């Protein structure tokens, strides 16, 4: 199973609306900042790549040391699900993204949810972590 993984949902203006460390290994404090930095730097690449393909899952778009960035772009182009990981489990990651995408759509359907604001529901958090344990 993957040892380190950082999952983030980034919305318009590159603001993260949800983040979670979902790896199985013990965390080092400074690594968390580094993960965010790496994911942020990968956003430019995502933007270019998103217009060349009509698929939603873009895998392995950037590398840093031994960590790989995979991205899933939703239909509302500004919302990107980004995962920083070191495993090679592509199918598992794709299924993970698809499940979280469904959760995101359900959150979005709430008429009182402002698209682009932080997702604060603890239920959402629990479900994402459970999915991560299952697929990653």
């Amino acid at each position, binding site marked *: 199973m993957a040892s380190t993984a950082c999952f983030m949902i980034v919305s318009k203006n590159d603001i993260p609306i949800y983040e979670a460390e979902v790896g199985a290994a013990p965390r080092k404090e400074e690594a968390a900042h580094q993960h965010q930095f790496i994911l942020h730097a990968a956003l430019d690449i995502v933007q270019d790549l*998103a*217009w060349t393909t*009509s698929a939603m899952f873009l895998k392995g778009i950037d590398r840093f040391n031994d960590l790989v960035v995979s991205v899933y772009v939703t239909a509302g182009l500004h919302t990107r699900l980004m995962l920083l990981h070191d495993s090679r489990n592509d199918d598992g990651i794709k299924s993970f993204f698809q499940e979280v995408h*469904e959760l995101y*759509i*359900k*959150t979005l359907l709430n008429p009182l949810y402002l*698209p682009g604001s932080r997702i604060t529901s603890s239920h959402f958090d629990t479900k994402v972590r459970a999915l991560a344990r299952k697929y990653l």
Partner: protein
Amino acid sequence: MIGVGKMKLYSNVLDRPLSKGKQEVSLSAFAFLFSEMVQYNQTQVDNIAELERRLEDAGYAVGARVLELLCHREKGNRRETRLLGILSFVHSTVWKVLFGKVADSLEKGTEHEDEYMISEKELLVNRFISIPKDMGTFNCGAFVAGIVRGVLDNAGFPAVVTAHFVPVEGQQRPRTTILIKFAEEVLRREARLG
């Protein structure tokens, strides 16, 4: 058997399946809701432009959600990256889901490169609404224009969308046209993508 046909009650909306849902909603319920919305906004504003803007904003929120939901349900998670693709998506899929039929026509504007028009003989939202003479060119189709703008904007094609009445000879009520004017960057990107 007891229990058959009873829906499972989920405690949290995130647990509920994101299925097709009910295909049909009562038209009269929607007409009442829409008329209340227009009346409520009428009491809040001083002029017509503001009223149109409010209806458009309400439609924008709908459009953002409709885009995500339909791409997930109907198109099996394939996004639209080209201009014509997204326009035909709006013209057929979105219209079909929202109004039960595809839009009457989709045309490219003749004067400007960046203008497109979706026409409809009678918009569903306008069916039970009559505009008094002193409100001039106000069109409740601004709500639908807002929906289209929400879809286009969130898909990465920023545009200015407005609704207009176009009188047609031989017909008592004018035709409604949704005019879509894309932003500069959309055309540049389209040209770059070839």
